[in-house]
């Protein structure tokens, strides 16, 4: 399993999660967990996904997520999980 953290930040509106989930489904990326909060009109979402069966390189994933983000007017980032574990765990 190759776990990646996906974060999405932007102004909340109808139809954000649908296109993002479709992108993952189309690319063989399995969603393991989704958490979301909406503060005032802004949405913060975190997904943990498994990219084990994703057959393109990480650069492509990042740039395709940028494009998906543009479609839903949000910023979507993908990062390896270790960065967060290193920073916040002893």
């Amino acid at each position, binding site marked *: 399993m190759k776990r990646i*953290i996906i*974060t999405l930040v932007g102004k909340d509106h109808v139809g954000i999660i649908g296109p993002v989930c479709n992108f993952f489904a189309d690319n063989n990326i399995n969603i393991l967990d989704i958490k979301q909060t909406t503060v005032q009109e802004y949405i913060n979402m*975190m997904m*943990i996904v498994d990219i084990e069966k994703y057959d393109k390189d990480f650069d492509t994933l*990042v740039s395709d997520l940028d494009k998906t983000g543009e479609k839903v007017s949000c910023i979507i980032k993908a*990062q390896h999980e270790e*960065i967060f574990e*290193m920073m*916040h765990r002893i």
Partner: protein
Amino acid sequence: MVEMKEVFETNDMVSHENLDVRTITMGISLLDCIDSDLDTLCKNIYDKITASARDLVRVGDDIGLEFGVPVINKRISVTPIALVGGSACKSPEDFVKVAETLDSAAKEVGVNFIGGYSALVQKGMTPADRNLILSVPEALKRTERVCSSISLGSTKTGINMDAVRLMGDIILESAELTKEDDSLGCAKLVVFCNPPDDNPFMAGAFHGVTESDRIINVGVSGPGVVKNVLSKVRGENFEVLCETIKKTAFKVTRVGQLFAKEASRRLDVPFGIVDLSLAPTPAVGDSIADIIHEMGMEYAGAPGTTAALAILNDQVKKGGVMASSYVGGLSGAFIPVTEDKSMAYAAEIGALTLEKLEAMTCVCSVGLDMIAIPGDTPATTIAGIIADEMAIGMINQKTTAVRIIPVIGKGVGDVAEFGGLLGEAKIMPVNKFGCADFVNRGGRIPAPIHSFKN
């Protein structure tokens, strides 16, 4: 399981507080390149550097992309060239040819600086050391990416005052040869007392002779992160202040540790150290002076600044040491003037003077750094400034350095512009009273009594 709050905290540090990995620096030993023929030496150096660091830039960029924290600089440090070129280089001009080789190799692999055009003369100078030092102005003029550092003193050996005096002339000559660019050559030249062998930061990085063939050293950063977290504890006591800095330094250093291990694995080069230094940039919010302001000073340089910097330096180390398996380099807070917008402003309005900066260097990790002074400053005065700084390092058993830029053709209040990460600042006044009779004495200052620990 990673918590959402932690994920967004990390990403806020990157997006809003300029968290980055300042440099991944590959140290490369050039001792096996030594040859008595200059052309063979240069070929050996070029081949070894380009083979060793071929993938450095790509790997640094890949890691930055995958973890979502940018790696700003990818750099190389090499064995002090006075040692490597001693056999082949019979004149300063010969050494310049080696500098040009380093520059070409740096351009070939895509690193923005290569350090190690250096001589270690803290006790005495060999003919090769002297030739290298004499070649520095021309080498810095003819190359773009080569950085030079000269070690002039140490707690163990004392201070080589002949070399200190010589460096007064060399700094002025470097300034003169690059006067069209506000004497930019001097921004790539630093003199040291007690330099570390594993410093990843420029201009002072070199690959010490005690190091292995190749090594990966990483310099982290994060003044903006510390400043932001301190804004949340305004008015709290010193215990809270110190704990807050320590915890933040831990997090920032962990990023460096992760990147260093990852770069080491991907490049198949051993991991050396993480340097914990808080290194500012001219970007808004990426400033040591802003941290000092946040701690309670009206501007950096106000009374209390030295104490604040001492706290900052110590807490950064305490937090950082636990976060990394190997800590080294300079590790502390840098206090450059031109590279830190708020520091430059504090100097401009008179809050920060050269003398106060000197006091601050007693408790920070380096020394007088990126300070523009009038171009007509005498060489003897520059040597005097260097001698003071070397003495602070020697007596306090710490690294100190001087990277000072006499801007030819400009005086106090004029603006010196270096561009990019080197920044800009108004030229600071220097004490007008002379010290020529002192620095011209010649010889060497003996090692201090507390160096005799055997």
